[in-house]
């Protein structure tokens, strides 16, 4: 594995002048973090906690008041550092007068892609985000989910090694949201480093292997997801088709054990999101079946 961190933020402080106060507002307060290549890192925190400011500093859109940011060893204030970055901003709006295909072409050409490679790459990206049918349609007519997906395609058009996603599923319906999460998972499999900012904790938990919690500009907790969320002194057992007798025996065994204490037993629950996705899938399949019969 590569030794150079994909992202290295050293004691980042960012202050903004406040028009009505003498003192400056500290949006990011001494944040340091390191993301190794191939990791999916989630920065979570409430609105206004400094997530987007940290990302902007990493993208060179903001200059740190003090501290530094590096992308694959290159200072984020240098243009070259952005050769390796793909960025999807929160609620992205693209040029409404361009079609999906023209949008990707514009961003690809900015990254230096030309000729046959450019064309192939655009086709691949449109296929990846399932927008082949809308490739000639103007962006102005795209839905929120489609905008988010074309945003993701433009972020990945030049095959970056680091992808920065700011609230990638904000305002997207559950199906679109699932597609975006699947894409993040596929990026992870391909070894792409993902830096994700979100306040939707469940999503972060699903895709990230490292998490940082930022609150009022300070990184209050950081580490691998497993380490952070596992409760060390408890064990979960999930059993299928167990009879009442079996369950009673399990409880009896625990009761007989030294130090062990029985805490809870019940049926595990699915999430409302999983239920929705399953129902949507079944309805879709039933619709297709009916269509085939009619044909």
């Amino acid at each position, binding site marked *: 594995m590569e030794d150079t961190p994909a992202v290295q933020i050293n004691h980042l402080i960012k202050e903004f002048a406040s028009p009505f106060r003498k003192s400056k507002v500290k949006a990011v307060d001494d944040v340091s973090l390191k993301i190794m290549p191939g990791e999916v890192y989630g920065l979570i925190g409430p609105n206004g906690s400094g997530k987007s400011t940290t990302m*902007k500093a990493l*993208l*060179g*859109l*903001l*200059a740190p008041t003090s501290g530094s940011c590096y992308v694959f060893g290159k200072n984020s204030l240098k*243009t*070259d550092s*952005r*050769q390796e*970055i793909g*960025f999807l*901003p929160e*609620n*992205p*709006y*693209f*040029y409404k*007068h*361009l079609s999906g295909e023209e949008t990707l072409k*514009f*961003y690809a*050409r*900015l*990254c*230096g*892609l*030309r000729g046959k*490679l450019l064309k*192939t*790459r655009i086709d*691949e990206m449109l296929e990846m985000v399932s927008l082949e049918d809308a490739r000639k349609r103007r962006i102005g007519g795209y839905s929120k989910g489609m905008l988010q997906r074309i*945003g993701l395609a*433009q*972020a990945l058009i*030049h*095959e970056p090694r680091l992808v*920065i996603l700011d609230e990638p599923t904000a305002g997207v319906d559950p199906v679109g949201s699932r597609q975006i999460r699947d894409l993040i998972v596929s990026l992870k499999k391909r070894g792409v480093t993902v830096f994700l900012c979100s306040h939707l904790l469940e999503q972060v938990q699903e895709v990230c292997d490292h998490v940082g919690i930022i609150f009022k500009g300070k990184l209050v907790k950081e580490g691998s997801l497993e380490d952070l969320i596992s409760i060390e002194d408890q064990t979960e057992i999930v059993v299928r088709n167990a009879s009442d007798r079996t369950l009673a025996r399990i409880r009896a065994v625990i009761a007989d054990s030294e130090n062990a204490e029985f805490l809870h037993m019940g049926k595990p629950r699915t999430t409302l999101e999983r239920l929705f996705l399953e129902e949507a899938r079944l309805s879709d399949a039933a619709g297709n079946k009916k269509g085939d019969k009619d044909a």
Partner: protein
Amino acid sequence: MQQEIRKETKMRKNGIFSPSRILVIASHTFTQLVRMKVFYFLAVFAMLMLVASYFEMPWSRTTEDSAEQELIILKSTAMGAMAMFSVLFAIAATALLIPKDLEDRTLYTILSKPVPRFDYLLGKLIGVLLLVGSSLLLMDILLSFILHSRTDALITAEMERGAARGWQQEYLDLRKEEISQQGLTWDLQAGIGAIFFKAMIMASIALLISTFSSSTLFTIVIAVVIYFIGHFTADARNYWLQNQGAGVSTQVKLLSQGASLIFPDFQLYNIIDAAIEGKKIAANIFQRLALLTFFYTGIYSVLAWFTFRKKEF
């Protein structure tokens, strides 16, 4: 594929100035402006003015040199419209583009790619100038066509009138030459070139203001004010220096010359009036004007980059 892309993109150095990247931004800006229908409307309006001036002409035939007067009125109307539209295009389009990119957050997606800020600014400026240049070219073609056909028609009419009055051939030739001088000439094209130069300077001024201004309206108002001041700076400076007499220090003289950098001297572009009046314009004057224009545009573009390079979003 991955390696191929890496090779393709990494081979390109991200220096401060990349002609291919500037061209991408410029061509996109041009497309963006063309697809804003307001520009079509203005182009149609300009054409209507040209056609209107064509239809007005028969009523102005009152004096001996009425043929020339007709052509001067036609040129004056057309070039006045061209000057007005090119400056308005240049200021409004430039003032609109950067704040719009920022408001729509498209600027984030562009600057998060390996795009130096100077390339972005220059691309936007060139895109606007491409549009202004194309619009002027279209208007020029239309004017040239009308002017050529009107000149031919007026010469024919004048020759018939002269023949009926029994004018000598020498006088007929002189009249033909006089009328032709007010028709389609290279001097006229130089005048139209000067209109483009003025628009070029105004676009770069609007670009500079928009890098620190927080509103499009502010940018447009300040740019228009500078445009008007630019027509009086030379007179004001000369008047002031004359009033001060011999007691003007070198520092004050330098200061007044410095002021002429902030407010460009648009009186130097008076060859537009000379072109309308059918006067000869020397090639070296046009060349010097072109150099001056590139100097002004360069200065304003570099200043725009200075304010934009550290701007935070």
